[in-house]
């Protein structure tokens, strides 16, 4: 040490993210590129050249509903209509189950309002056999994979047909057959599992890829960073999705992002190509997912995608956002609503109109209501029709050991 400390040294200070002081910029989305502005890199483009994309935004749909630029995907009108239908189905599904919560038929629900395009669009770009490692806000993956709505609802209602036997939280579905890994209540754990699954697929010489999902808030967890190390080291065939919906319960995205410009920045230090994509633009979601999936399938390694969107609703039914959130936020959100935007595009193509839209809305609502009526006929958390206490001991281990069989018998005596 060379010199003594001197009294005139500045006292140290911390940077506290602005929103902690109640200063929400009305427009919180940074780096909004124009639709079509960004070039689509070759699948094996050097990571240094993709690097600029982390401070830009891939967008396909312009304000008039035109699909413009390199990233505009080559998909049929039918596929676009299917995307529209899937998103509307998810929204209708969420609305019905929120109502079920108010009716006391489920004790807990989490909706994906405003974020539907991301899960629905990515699902359409992947193949059967690929595996998603979702969070609780990707019901769109299951619904787009035609998982039966009734089965989902049976779980949300915790009735006797709940496929998870009343053990797991209502929205934490799992279905191996539909490429939907079981959801963890502890955040971020799925991220590294997805990388492990992808590594195993490669070790087996398989052709299936994995898609990891995480909210922007949960990227602060160590699992996220560890997953990036492994994905980078082994060039695992995985899509690393970050859904930046700007909120983690009451905490604005600024906290997890820190002083970095974007979440896509996180990929850079790991030499993982990272892009930012308009998550409310179904066509951009599809195109970017497709690009990342193809990279993985061609052994070109992981891709990180930061999806920009907005959590329009509350965090969950246990949360009241009015105490921390500016009311005008949804209205001022510059990326609009995913359903409206795809609808506008189809209308621009003259492939859609008001009449058809109203008819489709009625159709999905009917589908949801019919499914709900069926699920409800099997009971709900209100009627407590879930399996008997003896099922508590099933599946703790692969086999039922003797000491658990004895405990099961004792519980039966008591109940």
């Amino acid at each position: 040490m060379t010199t003594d400390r001197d009294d005139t040294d500045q006292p140290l200070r911390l940077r506290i993210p602005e929103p902690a002081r109640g200063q929400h910029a009305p427009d919180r989305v940074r780096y909004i590129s124009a639709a079509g502005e960004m070039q689509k890199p070759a699948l094996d483009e050097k990571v240094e050249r993709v690097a600029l994309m982390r401070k830009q935004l891939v967008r396909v749909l312009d304000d008039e509903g035109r699909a413009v630029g390199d990233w505009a995907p080559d998909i049929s009108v039918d596929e676009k209509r299917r995307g529209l239908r899937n998103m509307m189905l998810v929204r209708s599904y969420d609305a019905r189950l929120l109502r079920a919560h108010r009716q006391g038929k489920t004790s807990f629900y989490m909706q994906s309002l405003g974020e539907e395009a991301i899960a629905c669009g990515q699902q359409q770009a992947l193949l059967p056999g690929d595996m998603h490692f979702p969070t609780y806000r990707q019901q769109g993956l299951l619904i787009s994979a035609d998982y039966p709505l009734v089965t989902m609802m049976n779980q949300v209602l915790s009735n006797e047909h709940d496929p998870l036997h009343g053990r797991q939280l209502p929205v934490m579905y799992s279905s191996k057959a539909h490429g939907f890994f079981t959801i963890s209540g502890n955040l971020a754990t799925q991220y590294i599992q997805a990388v492990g699954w992808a590594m195993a697929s490669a070790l087996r010489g398989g052709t299936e890829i994995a898609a990891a999902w995480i909210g922007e808030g949960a990227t602060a967890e160590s699992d996220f960073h560890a997953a990036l190390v492994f994905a980078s080291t082994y060039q695992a065939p995985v899509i690393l999705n970050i859904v930046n919906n700007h909120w983690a319960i009451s905490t604005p995205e600024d906290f997890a992002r820190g002083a970095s410009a974007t979440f896509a920045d996180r990929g850079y230090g790991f030499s993982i190509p990272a892009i930012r994509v308009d998550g409310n633009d179904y066509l951009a979601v599809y195109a970017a997912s497709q690009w990342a999936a193809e990279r993985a399938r061609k052994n070109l390694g992981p891709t990180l995608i930061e999806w920009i969107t907005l959590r329009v609703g509350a965090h969950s039914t246990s949360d009241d956002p009015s105490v921390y959130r500016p009311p005008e936020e949804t209205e001022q959100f510059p990326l609009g609503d995913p359903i409206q935007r795809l609808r506008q595009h189809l209308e621009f193509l003259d492939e859609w109109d008001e009449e058809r839209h109203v008819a489709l809305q009625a159709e999905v609502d009917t589908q949801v209501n019919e499914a709900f009526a069926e699920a409800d006929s099997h009971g709900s958390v209100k009627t407590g029709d879930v399996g008997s206490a003896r099922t508590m001991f099933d599946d703790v281990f692969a086999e039922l050991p003797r000491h658990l069989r004895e405990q099961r018998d004792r519980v039966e005596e008591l109940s």
Partner: protein
Amino acid sequence: MSRKISYVQAFNEAVRQEMRADETVFCAGEDIGGFGGVFQTYAGLQEEFGEERVVDTPISEQAIIGLGVGAAATGSRPIVDIMFMDFICVAFDQIVNQAAKMKYMFGGSATVPLTITTGGGGGLSAAAQHSQSLEALICHIPGLKVVHPSNPYDMKGLMTACIREDNPTIMIKHKRLLGMQGEVPEEPYMIPLGTAATLREGADVTVVAWGRMVNEAFDVAEKLAEDGIDVEVIDPRTLQPLDSETIVESVRKTNRAVIVHEAVRFAGLGAEVAAQIQEEAFDYLDAPVARVAAPFSPVPFTPALEQHYQPSAARIEQAIRDIVARPGA
């Protein structure tokens, strides 16, 4: 002066008063700032003390505990919050291998006056990863102190003691007791760590229970009194260090003991209490020590199942009746 406030308010008041009295106390955790914490335990504190002393953090339990350890070792008195007790597992290295052992490994020259607060317990239909009672895991670690108050009065006194304590402490707030009302003095006070409370004196059997279970046991005891069964109810309040003396003395008097906890029975803290009773009061026992606890399976989600999972008043009552029915020696 004392008045009725809730368990949450008692927690909040302890933190507020200690923060006013001691500038080195600060809090950090997920959603604790403007939002006041998902259970409102930190409500209004950021308003009074500012963002530098009530720090909203990114979602990283490892970093939250780690920052607490670092800050505590350099002279602050941090209070760090882990939303659900289940998530301490995410930061277990910081708790078990770092906070707990630092004084010892630094040859005694480090102190770690860290308080970790967390929401524990079930009964809220929150499923296997948001409902656990993991006290046995942390009580097993030399260097940590663990408290689990069952009422607002104990909450304030124990939380104050935790903040003033020079060792790392873990305060388990029971999620089902947050709204519980009780008489709490306005002025600051401490309940010394490691002192049990005898909630009810009785001659026939000793029930040792903590958290929400001790309140259940108390109600059962009152009911059994009508049938002439005289139950002594002990709430250890601090689980580490455990006030074994009060427990053993009681059992020497009643000759029978039932231990009740929400955690799974196998290797739960009840096993330790039972072992200590037989070591210290073997010759006084008229019956084997009984335990009422959860089965060896994860906590289920639905209320219909969880109600079978959690020890109920009926099961506690049955265990007490069974043990007093055994002929004495």
